[in-house]
Each structure stands twice: as structure tokens, then as C-alpha cells.
């Protein structure tokens, strides 16, 4: 184990933590008084419209903006040539030749996906900007497009980035345990030709955008935006803009959902910065839905080839081998991190000890990818779960029994995976039992018979999520040892102000995760006040000096990184208040002071109390004559939480990559109409274990939401492309997201396995979506057993694919083989 536990793990506190208190955010949001980026206006601002490529792959011969600039009310334009002159390419994280890729704010020289911005026009109104954008003449020289990652790796495939000379972004092998030994020990080996995890995205309802101001005097930009990871955002943007990071002030307040889709907005934002500077006026850009679908980000698409699973006859899993091909789209941006993030959950929930993975990521002429709720782990977890069900099917074993036989047991926690990750706590078998109970597993046969009597096929499926939270960014060095990233951090500042106001600022950028509320619970308990008395500033502002390099809201980490920072700052503040009060009240020392009811009281004489208001006033405006031992008391405490990570071993690609692992086990019951392939989810349970819950209602809300994303992805949501690289689901007609009538009734359950690695016993959570995608796959496979026992090999199963499985089950089984050893 490379992770050490904090010195003291506190028992769950009695107090506001653990209670579902009213959410602080709600009052403004239910009244339409939230401030989303598009609500921010400035005098004289111009609206930006991007001219986008209709081609998936083409050379840019020329761009003529003269007609657009001649339109009255048009303030100006920006094209790739200017961008190339004024900025440097964005930092690339891969090793050569993948790091040769040159990515700019606008297309330079050629376009690599349909929808890629090639120019920008700024005008007095939104409509006029679009009118003028239509007048920009771009001459293209069309090139062949490649839209499949496997094909992109074939010799002779069109190459997207000539600088790299290949479509490979990153490639490497991972070899943990002794795979050959596992093969030798196996009774059977199950082979699966191909499993495929499809491309989709969580499509936050609010699209991306920003209002950007440039101050010529200070050479500073202010971005009122919805970037969800400003810490890393400015690391991309500042070097590109050839400025220091403090020249980029990022401001967010309310963000209409993120799900990872708002992490890689830097190309657009750099274009806006250039325009604001060039045109001497604030510029505003709102991305529309079609833009978001075609040219923001998608989740990673992954093909698993040549899967080999050595097992014992009783279903004990010994190991697996797989060749994974990941599709990064046209530009890597956050990639190739996805080539390692999956390894946080290498064996899923299972006791696989011997693993060999050959992983390659390729560029294709499609929208770039970025972290999408469950980033990179969702694909891996789906893979492990699919393997479990395929093996169970082929060995004639009960999938529930196979799971229980192979689950990592509660008594094995903390559990070190074959690649050195440490699963902190959890009880998968118990979660599964609760889930099965919720969907009436004991009555399954009766329900099958009942469905059959109505001409339907009923099936049950199980899925799991390990929501690994609090990344060790050192895992990036497993991809590229030259990278100078490791560890993680988050910041909070807690201050006692003049009139006793408790003011909390966070480094995070919540998009619905209720950080104001949850932070206030933690602060209230530590200071002996109520959450109402804690003012948590909404959103993020770099001017608050309450952020660090990894600040943001992503990767299920607030309940650990965010709350540890809040707790650290609050404890420091509490200590300062005690020290001050001890002096003022003449107590023996800080330990003799008790904080309760908004006052610092002497333990021995509670009527001797100093209200917080007095504390704030003394330090801030009435501080003459204070003794020197209070010189460092500011009542303004900033704390940076840094998780106890080591740099992983880059030789063995071994080490702990995340701090906590929340669990979700889902059970799904489907009914299939065998004549049409139409199916309905008739029962659904999600059981969550995210350690100690600070606000159960919020946790449950995250479980609901993640499940909806999963069911949408399983049934409706997909981003397919035609052979010319045109996206076929560019709006909510073709990209059908679940509506209220589409969602089955959800049953939820929970257990709490406190994390030994966080002070509050919490684990980051919120990305549990992957479980549902698999639960649907497994339920379909179970339901279709009576009609030829087809195997579900893809993560997305719309009605027509289910019909194909029924029509030709043999086709789905063609790539499956079991050999005796």
C-alpha cells in the first residue's frame, strides 16, 4: 500500500453533517435568479459566432472575411492565421509522436472534424453575428476522412496530424500479475472477439460559453464562464496566450450541468480572449445545442479486441487479456489521460490478479473527446461486467453466483489491485443483495412466467460502478514520465468577518453538486453554529485566491478534497477563535474554550462568552493592544488539502491512482417485445455506498441522475457518424435523452462503508452512471436466452439492435469461443 491513512479518523459526527438540510442554492435557482454565464451582460459587448467546417477532413485553401467585416454592426473577425501568429499551440500530454500534434483555438491550415471552428465573427447582436458568419468565404480542399479508431490505425488510413505522422495518440502495454501463469492454471479459456463501448455524452442542459473582458491597463482577461476545471483550464490557456496564469481571471457562478463536458473549453476561450483584446470590447459566446453535439466533446469510445479470460470451471476468474482501442476524436486535449484513468478500476469489483492490456488511442475525424461522467473507468467497468456475464453464459453458471464468487470481499478491504490501486472500503456482495431484494429477485421466475403469458421476455441484469474519486495526477506519468504532474489539491478559505459573518470560499466550480450546502454543514459542526449562519460564496473566482492547481469540480472528489479543505480551514479558524477568546476571556488556553451557539465560551464558565461578532470586530477593526501571541491570528484561514499520494512506479506502471472508491450496484429488470425488439425497464434498483454521507438527499439525487444518464446511454443516446464524418445525432431529436415518461421508477438503497482515508469517512461520488449501462446489457442478454441465447457485445442497445439479436442470435455468438485446457 502506498497510501497512508490520516492520523485520526473521526467517528461520524452528531450535528448537521448527515442531515438532509435545505439546500442553500435553491432559493435563487427556483426563482430564476441564478447567474449563469449567458445572464451576464456588459455595455458594448459583441456577440461571437463561429464559422464551422462542414467537412470532417479538409485543407483550408483560403479564408476571406471581407464581406463579413463590411456588414454594418459587425465589430470584427478572427481567423486561424491570426491565432497561429498570436498564440502557441496548446500543451500536449502524450509522448512522441502524439505530442507533436498542434492544437490551436481555431483551425490552422486544415480542419479535422465537421463543426471545427475556422473563423469567428463578432457583431452587435446574436443574429447579426450569424448573418455575417455566413458571409465568410472559406475554400476547402476535401480530404478522405477516417471515422473509426480501428481503421485509423490501419496502414494507409488518412492521417489527421501530419506533424505526428500517425493517428496514434498514445500506445502502451500494461502487464500485471502473471498472465501466462493464469492461463496455465485455467480449466477453460473464454475468448471474445470484440466488445464495443459506444460514443455518447452527458450533454449538460446548459451549453458552454463565456463573456470575456480584457483590461488593457492590466493586460488581464476576465472570463465569466462555465469552465468546470479552471485550475487546469488556465494551465492550457496561459502558455498558449503567452501570459501568466494570473492574467486569466476565471469567474463562475451557477453552471447548468457539466459532467466533464466543460473541462476542455480552452480552445474556444482562447479565441474569445484574442477577440476581446483585438476588438477592445467585451465579447460573448453562447454555444448552441447543435454546436455542443458536433463540436464540444464526447465521451470516449472504446473497442475491446481479442479478449481472453482464463477461468476455473467453477467460474473463478483468474485474469484477462485484451487489446483496447480508444477513440480520442480529432484532438487529444484532455487525452491521453483516458489511456490510464481506466486503470484506477482495472479489475472492476473482482479478484482478477493477472491482467495484460494492450492499449492504443487513436485520432479520428470526429468531435474531440473529454472526460464524461465516469470518464474512462465506465468503459473499463462495463468491460469487466460484460466479461462476467459472457463467461457465466458460456459456462452455464448463474451470473449472481459468479459475481459473488469473484467479488472482492469486505474483509479484504483495503484491497490492493494488481496494479497497486487501493480500494479503501466497501461491501459489494451486500450491495448486490440489497439491490436484488429491491427488485424482487426471489420472485423472478414467477415474473418471467407472467411476462411470457403476455408475450414478453423478461430478464434481469446487474451492473456495478466503482466511483474512484480524488485522482492522483501522478498517473499521468505512467503515460509520459516526463510530465510534471502528480498528486492533487483543493483549497478553501474560511473567514470570520467584522460583524461575525462566517464566509467560506471554495476552489470548486459546482454544477449542481450542492457545495454551498454541504460545505456549510461541515463548517457549522466545527464552529458550533447552524448552516444558515455560514455564508458559502457561490461559484468560483480566481480573485478570491481560493484555488490551486487542480481546483475544479470533476472526478468525484468534492466530498474528499473539497471537504478536507473546508475542514482544514475551519479547524484553523476555530483554533484562532479559541486563542483569541482565551486571551480576551482570561481562560487558561485555547483548549479551555468551547465553540457553540455562535460564541466562544469558557468551558469552566460558559456565561463568559465572546460572540463571534466580537471576535470578528476585534481582529478586523479594534485590534490595538492585542498581545504578540495573537499576531498570527487573522480569522481568515486558507487551507490547501493535499492527499497523501506517492508518484507511481513508472517502470511497472504500478501505484495508487485514487484515494477513495464509492460503490454502486444496480439491478435492472427488462421486458422485451420479441417481435419488435422494443423493451421497457420494469424494475430498477441502485444501491450506493459512498462511505459516510454528509447529505443523504443530495447523494440520492446524484444516484438518480447518474442512473438516468446510464439508461439514456444504454437505450437512446449515441453519437454515430456517417462515412463522411457527419454526426448523425446533432440535436435532441435524434439524440434522445430520457424524458420523464422514459424513466422507470427507481428504487434506491444504500450502505455506508466509511473510507479510512478521509477525515469524515466520506468518498467522492456522483459518477455512478456506468452501472446502469451494463445492467441493461445484462438484463437484455438474460431476457433473450430463450430466443437463441444471443450475446450482447455493445453498450448501446436501441430497439433495432435488440431486434437484430433476436433475428440472428448466431451472429452475435460468432466471436465467442470457449476452449478447455
Amino acid at each position, binding site marked *: 500500500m502506498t497510501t497512508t491513512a490520516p492520523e485520526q479518523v473521526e467517528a461520524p459526527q452528531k450535528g448537521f453533517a448527515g442531515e438532509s438540510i435545505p439546500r442553500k442554492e435553491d432559493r435563487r435557482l427556483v426563482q430564476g435568479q441564478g447567474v449563469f454565464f449567458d445572464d451576464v451582460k456588459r455595455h458594448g459587448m459583441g456577440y461571437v459566432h463561429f464559422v464551422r467546417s462542414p467537412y470532417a477532413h479538409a485543407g483550408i485553401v483560403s479564408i476571406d472575411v471581407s464581406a463579413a467585416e463590411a456588414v454594418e454592426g459587425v465589430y470584427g473577425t478572427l481567423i486561424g492565421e491570426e491565432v497561429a501568429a498570436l498564440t502557441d499551440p496548446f500543451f500536449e500530454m502524450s509522448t512522441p509522436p502524439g505530442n507533436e500534434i498542434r492544437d490551436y483555438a481555431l483551425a490552422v491550415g486544415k480542419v479535422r472534424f465537421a463543426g471545427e471552428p475556422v473563423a469567428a465573427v463578432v457583431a452587435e447582436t446574436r*443574429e447579426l453575428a450569424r448573418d455575417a458568419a455566413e458571409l465568410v468565404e472559406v475554400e476547402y480542399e476535401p480530404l478522405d476522412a477516417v471515422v473509426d479508431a480501428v481503421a485509423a490505425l490501419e496502414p494507409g488510413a488518412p492521417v489527421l496530424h501530419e506533424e505526428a505522422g500517425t493517428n496514434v495518440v498514445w500506445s502502451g502495454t500494461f502487464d500485471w500479475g502473471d498472465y501466462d501463469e493464469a492461463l496455465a492454471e485455467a480449466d477453460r479459456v473464454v475468448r471474445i472477439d470484440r466488445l464495443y463501448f459506444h460514443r455518447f455524452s452527458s450533454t449538460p442542459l446548459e451549453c458552454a460559453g463565456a463573456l470575456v473582458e480584457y483590461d488593457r491597463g492590466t493586460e488581464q482577461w476576465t472570463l465569466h464562464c462555465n469552465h468546470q476545471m479552471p485550475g487546469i483550464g488556465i494551465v492550457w490557456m496561459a502558455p498558449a496566450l503567452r501570459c501568466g496564469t494570473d492574467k486569466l481571471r476565471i469567474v463562475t457562478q451557477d453552471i447548468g450541468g457539466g459532467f466533464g463536458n466543460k473541462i476542455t473549453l480552452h480552445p474556444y476561450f482562447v479565441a474569445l480572449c484574442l477577440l476581446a483584446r483585438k476588438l477592445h470590447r467585451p465579447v460573448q459566446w453562447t454555444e448552441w445545442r447543435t454546436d455542443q453535439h458536433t463540436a464540444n466533446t464526447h465521451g470516449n469510445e472504446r473497442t475491446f479486441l481479442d479478449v481472453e479470460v482464463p477461468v476455473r470451471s467453477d467460474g473463478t476468474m483468474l485474469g484477462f487479456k485484451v487489446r483496447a482501442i480508444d477513440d480520442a476524436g480529432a484532438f487529444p486535449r484532455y487525452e491521453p489521460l483516458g489511456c490510464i484513468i481506466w486503470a484506477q478500476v482495472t479489475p472492476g469489483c473482482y479478484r482478477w490478479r493477472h491482467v495484460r492490456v494492450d492499449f492504443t488511442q487513436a485520432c479520428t475525424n470526429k468531435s474531440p473527446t473529454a472526460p464524461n461522467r465516469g470518464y474512462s473507468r465506465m468503459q473499463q467497468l462495463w468491460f469487466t461486467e460484460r466479461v462476467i456475464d459472457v463467461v457465466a453464459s458460456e459456462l452455464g453458471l448463474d451470473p449472481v453466483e459468479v459475481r459473488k464468487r469473484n467479488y472482492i470481499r469486505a474483509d479484504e478491504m483495503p484491497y490492493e489491485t494488481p496494479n497497486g490501486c487501493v480500494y479503501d472500503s466497501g461491501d459489494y456482495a451486500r450491495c448486490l443483495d440489497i439491490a436484488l431484494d429491491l427488485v424482487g429477485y426471489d420472485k423472478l421466475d414467477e415474473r418471467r412466467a407472467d411476462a411470457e403469458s403476455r408475450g414478453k421476455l423478461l430478464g434481469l441484469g446487474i451492473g456495478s460502478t466503482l466511483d474512484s474519486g480524488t485522482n492522483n495526477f501522478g498517473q499521468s506519468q505512467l503515460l509520459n514520465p516526463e510530465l510534471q504532474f502528480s498528486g492533487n489539491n483543493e483549497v478553501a478559505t474560511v473567514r470570520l468577518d467584522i460583524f461575525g459573518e462566517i464566509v467560506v470560499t471554495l476552489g470548486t466550480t459546482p454544477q449542481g453538486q450542492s457545495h454551498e450546502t454541504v460545505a456549510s454543514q461541515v463548517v457549522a459542526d466545527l464552529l458550533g453554529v447552524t448552516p444558515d449562519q455560514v455564508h458559502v460564496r457561490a461559484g468560483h473566482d480566481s480573485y478570491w485566491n481560493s484555488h490551486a492547481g487542480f481546483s475544479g469540480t470533476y472526478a468525484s472528489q468534492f466530498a474528499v478534497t473539497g471537504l478536507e479543505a473546508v475542514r482544514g480551514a475551519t479547524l484553523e479558524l476555530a483554533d484562532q477563535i479559541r486563542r483569541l477568546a482565551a486571551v480576551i476571556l482570561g481562560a487558561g488556553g485555547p483548549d479551555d474554550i468551547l465553540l457553540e451557539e455562535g460564541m466562544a465560551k469558557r468551558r469552566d464558565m460558559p456565561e463568559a462568552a465572546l460572540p463571534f461578532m466580537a471576535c470578528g470586530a476585534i481582529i478586523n477593526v479594534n485590534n490595538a493592544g492585542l498581545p504578540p501571541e495573537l499576531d498570527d491570528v487573522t480569522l481568515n484561514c486558507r487551507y490547501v488539502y493535499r492527499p497523501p499520494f506517492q508518484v507511481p512506479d513508472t517502470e511497472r506502471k504500478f501505484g495508487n491512482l485514487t484515494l477513495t472508491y464509492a460503490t454502486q450496484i444496480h439491478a435492472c429488470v427488462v421486458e422485451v417485445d420479441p417481435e419488435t425488439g422494443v423493451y421497457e425497464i420494469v424494475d430498477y434498483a441502485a444501491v450506493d455506498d459512498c462511505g459516510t454521507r454528509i447529505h443523504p438527499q443530495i447523494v440520492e439525487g446524484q444516484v438518480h441522475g447518474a442512473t438516468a444518464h446510464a439508461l439514456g446511454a444504454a437505450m437512446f443516446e449515441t453519437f454515430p457518424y456517417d462515412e463522411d464524418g457527419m454526426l448523425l445525432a446533432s440535436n435532441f431529436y435524434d439524440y434522445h435523452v430520457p424524458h420523464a415518461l*422514459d424513466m422507470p421508477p427507481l428504487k434506491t438503497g444504500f450502505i455506508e462503508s466509511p473510507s479510512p482515508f478521509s477525515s469524515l469517512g466520506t468518498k467522492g461520488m456522483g459518477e455512478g452512471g456506468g452501472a446502469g449501462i451494463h445492467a441493461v446489457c445484462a438484463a437484455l442478454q438474460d431476457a433473450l436466452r430463450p430466443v437463441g441465447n444471443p450475446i450482447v457485445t455493445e453498450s448501446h442497445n436501441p430497439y433495432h439492435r435488440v431486434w437484430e439479436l433476436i433475428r440472428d442470435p448466431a451472429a452475435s455468438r460468432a466471436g465467442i469461443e470457449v476452449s478447455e485446457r
Partner: protein
Amino acid sequence: MLLSEVGYARPTSVDEAVRLLAENDGARPLAGGQTIVNVMKARAAAPDVLVDLADLAELRTIAATSDGGLDLGALATYAQVITSAEVKAARPLLSDVAAQIADVQVRNRGTVGGNVCSNDPTNHLPPLFVAMGASMTLVGPDGERTVPAEEFFLGVYMTAVAPGELLTRIVVPPAGEALDGFDAVTIGADGTCIVNAAVTAAGGEARIVLGCVAATPVLLTAAADEASVRAAVRGAELDPPSDLHGTVEYRRHLAEVVAARALAAAQEGS
């Protein structure tokens, strides 16, 4: 979002509307706007002038005809059709199907006239009106003419409504002995149709009308039994479009299934 510049006029009479449509090249009527405004957002194919029919109250009425059929004003909204006592009495299926279209907000604005005039192949009402043998009343500068529903639909977004003409009413004959049925496979609950079918069966004969399998509704006739209906659909050699929601083969197969189910629904409903 963000429409191209467009002219706008809001006539107060049908005559004025027709004049505006006839006199302005590229003019299109604006009824509920639930299709055309969306199409305009993409800017690819946009009208030059919108003639807003909002003030033509006489086109908003739903009335029973003397023979027990329905006289639907083109501007009657889905919401009106859903709650109309006349519709429920004469052809209740029309009301049931209108309730499946999109969502409350769209049903509050969208009109029966707009549904047939836009003729998106996935629309619900074109197959239904063809099955029921409805007829469309068109008013143009030269007066009024009537077009049977089965001759009304000419292509995607194309109908018998000529430039300068306006659809004013849709007349649905009385059901008499006829039984109406509808079935569809949709993308999610009440979502866009993947394939739909309307059936009107009378005297042992079924008029089967398939939607989403061609640019216009496909009308077939067969004896009103499942085997005959299925055989008729199979024999129609459909060449449906394929997209991410259904392949050619899937739509062809669904056409047969939903036709049979629409017939069953018609017969069960009796």
C-alpha cells in the same frame, strides 16, 4: 437558434392571408410554428415571409358536420383536438393520437394544419387522415378547392398546397361502421415515430396507411384480418429510409407489425 431575417405579416382575414401568400415570393403560413420555427433556426431552408395566421379565429374551430363527421379548422391545436367533445364523439382515435404528439407545450401550440402541411414523414396525423379518408380544403387567389388526403401529401415538407394557397380546413367523414386504429414504435415514450400505422377497417376491408417508411404516407388496402394486412405490407416492397433509429430492414419489419397491431387496436376498440 438565431433566424435569418424574415418578413412578418399578421392578416386578419383568410382573403388577406391568401393575398399575402400569393404576392410575396417565398411566403409561408405560420400557424403554431412548432415545425417551421425549428426549421428556420437551422437557416438551411427558410421562408422569406411568414404570414402569421394567429388572428384567423374562424380557422380555429372544431365542429361536427351534418353527417356526423368532423370539420377541423386548420389552426385547431392538438390540445383542442384532445379535449374536443366533437372529436371524441366522431373519431375518438384522433384525440388519442393527438395526445401522443410531442409534449404539452407543443400540443398547446401545434396545429392539425401545421402537422399535415409540414408532412415530416414521422408525423402522426398524415397516415391517420389518409386512413380516415379526410379531405383538405385549400383556398387560393382563384377560390377554394378540395383535395383528398391521399392526394395531399407529395413529399417531405411538400403537399398539394400550391404557392399562394392556404389550407383552411380538414374534413373527416363520419366513422359510420368503420373502426380506427393506430400503432407506432417511437424513440422513447411519446417520442418521434420510428414507424407508425393507421388503419381504418370497414366492411371487412382495411385501409392501412404507413408512416415513416417513405416520403409520404403509404396507403394499402387489404381484407381486415391480420394475415391479409401483413401480406399486404410485405407485398408493398417498401423502401424505407434508414437512420440511427432503424435500418431499412427494421423499418420494413416494423411496418408489418405496427400495421397488424393498428388493425388489432381498431378491432379491439370496437
